[in-house]
């Protein structure tokens, strides 16, 4: 078997293992390990790699934002803050069909504005919103799907880790990419809210409702939210005004919510330990998947499957738009089994030079930014497309009562909304570029 064939056959093998209930991170890790052994003709290379790979994955400064935000979420819950937040959101939206889910999307968008990672957004917001959604009678599948989709806003709304990587790979301006991502990010949030209203119309049993509250009561609920708002503003303001990096913002946020929870009396002995346990379980689960994905993608790069697959696409002699659509479809398919950062790292160096010589009627810089935003979105769709979607796993595993098949079927509505949005952005580049054009 050639290296290329080994790489190619690893896809179905990985899928079979995952469907046989092998833990995702372990499956990617094992396939990557064995594949590397086959490609390099022995275990030596894989074992050598493993000497430092676990440490370097787990000691990533940018990923340290994950446990900090998770802990922040638990502290917020302990301090009664998430309940207050949802009481406020619910008091304004709860009487609408699907209102609390819409509020959750809004909260995800707000959180996305301070966090550069989808997993962190999905995990933290689930911590806060999932119990509330379930309490309001939302079906497990719908609630988890809403939060999985909402989680992608973490990376669609700047700052975004993926955009930073893209900017470095393609030598583009990070600030401009962030600016361009803003409108598509807001569109994503609006699209999800629209999806929710359609979903509850089609599946009325999947969401509870109640009569509207008097206005005075709504504002009373709003006042209870001030500690959350304070922490939130400190974190958002701090990051945007340059007092700290996103990871530092996460630390400040965790510190702030911890302090409030302490003052409120929610953080004593057992509760403190419980918040550690919960943070521990989600954190280790996420990092083990990151480790597995890193190992698997290192192996895949060595087989050159992603590189040769992309080169093949280019050498078919199609027109500009056809190539673009093939690339996007390829990302969607790869997104079914690969993690987004690895996909970007492997394919952008090959796709970008090709795209940049095709004629879409844009200046080179506009083209680079537009392409970056579109693949950012497509890659993020991969986080919620079954069968392998990082956000789906993370959130589904937080709700033990809901089988993932229910999450799968509900999330397809959000995937559909994503595909409509991608189509709009592809057909009308001006949606992505108009902020840039205004400020120039």
């Amino acid at each position: 078997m050639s290296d290329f064939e080994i790489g190619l056959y690893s896809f179905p093998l990985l899928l079979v293992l995952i469907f046989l209930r092998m833990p995702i991170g372990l499956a990617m890790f094992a396939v990557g390990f064995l594949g590397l052994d086959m490609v390099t003709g022995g275990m030596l290379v894989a074992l050598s790699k493993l000497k430092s790979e676990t440490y370097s994955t787990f000691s990533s400064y940018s990923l340290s934002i994950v446990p900090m935000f998770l802990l922040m979420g638990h502290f917020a819950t302990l301090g009664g803050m998430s309940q207050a937040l949802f009481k406020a959101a619910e008091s304004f939206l709860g009487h609408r069909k699907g209102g609390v889910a819409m509020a959750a999307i809004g909260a995800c968008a707000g959180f996305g504005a301070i966090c550069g990672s989808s997993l962190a957004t999905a995990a933290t917001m689930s911590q806060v919103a999932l119990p509330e959604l379930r309490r309001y009678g939302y079906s497990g599948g719908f609630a988890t799907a809403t939060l999985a989709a909402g989680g992608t806003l973490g990376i669609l709304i700047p700052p975004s880790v993926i955009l930073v990587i893209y900017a470095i790979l393609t030598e583009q301006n990070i600030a401009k990419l962030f600016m361009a991502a803003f409108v598509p990010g807001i569109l994503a949030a609006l699209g999800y809210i629209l999806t929710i209203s359609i979903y509850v119309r089609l599946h009325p049993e999947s969401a509870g409702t109640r009569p509207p509250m008097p206005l005075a009561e709504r504002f009373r609920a709003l006042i209870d939210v001030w500690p959350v708002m304070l922490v939130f503003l400190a974190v958002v303001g701090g990051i945007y005004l340059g007092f700290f990096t996103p990871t530092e913002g996460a630390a400040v946020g965790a510190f702030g919510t911890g302090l409030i929870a302490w003052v409120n009396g929610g953080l004593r002995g057992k509760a403190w330990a419980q918040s550690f346990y919960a943070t521990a379980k989600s954190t280790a689960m996420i990092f083990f998947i990151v480790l597995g994905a890193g190992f698997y993608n290192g192996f895949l790069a060595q087989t050159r499957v992603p590189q040769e697959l992309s080169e093949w696409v280019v050498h078919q002699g199609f027109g500009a738009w056809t190539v673009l659509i093939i690339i996007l479809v390829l990302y969607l398919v790869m997104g079914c089994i690969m993690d987004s950062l690895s996909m970007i790292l492997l394919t952008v160096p090959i796709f970008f030079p090709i795209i940049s010589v095709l004629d879409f009627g844009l200046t080179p810089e506009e083209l680079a930014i537009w392409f970056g935003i579109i693949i950012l979105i497509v890659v993020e769709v991969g986080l919620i497309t079954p069968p392998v979607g990082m956000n789906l796993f993370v959130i589904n595993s937080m709700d033990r009562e809901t089988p993932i098949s229910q999450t799968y079927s509900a999330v397809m509505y959000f995937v559909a909304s994503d595909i409509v949005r991608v189509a709009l952005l592809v057909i009308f580049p001006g949606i992505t570029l108009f902020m840039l054009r205004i400020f120039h």
Partner: protein
Amino acid sequence: MTLARIMAILGGLVLTALILLTVVSVIGRTFNGILHWEWLETLAPGGTKALLDAGIGPVLGDFELVEAGIAFTIFAFLPLTQITGSHATVDVFTSALPVTANRVLIAFWEVIFAIAMVVIAWRLYDGMLGKMRYNETTFLLQFPVWWAYAASFGAAAVAAIVTIYTALARMVELASARAILPDTGEAGH
């Protein structure tokens, strides 16, 4: 179970320490900036100087400490994740299978996991020896990198032990058809 909980609390305490360290560093850096404001320096030149000399500023090497600490934290978080069966899985197909088949699969993957964790801990130990041999240090604080590796290795070793225990427990569960460990979510849930 107790061991896994102790490790999770240990990891949580380190995480809390990193959060405090980062907050102190941010505050220090902000005040350092404020103390360099020109009008403040002209207003109270001695005062700002004294405070700056007292070391008001960011914590030196805060990035490095976060990196070293977070690695330990993740390794320390693994045992609890393992023993509670909290790793992400896809049960869409297996939920159609009988309960026994699922138990067999769970026990089998747990055994593979135990092998993987032992290999991970062993390789990390080797990695630590390499860092010792090459005298690698961090960039700013220049503490030996192998210290960080040693801390992580300690936690990884515990994770390996707990994973072996978990695998054995799952096999006993399979043989005796009774639950020892918390439920991972049985078929058909």
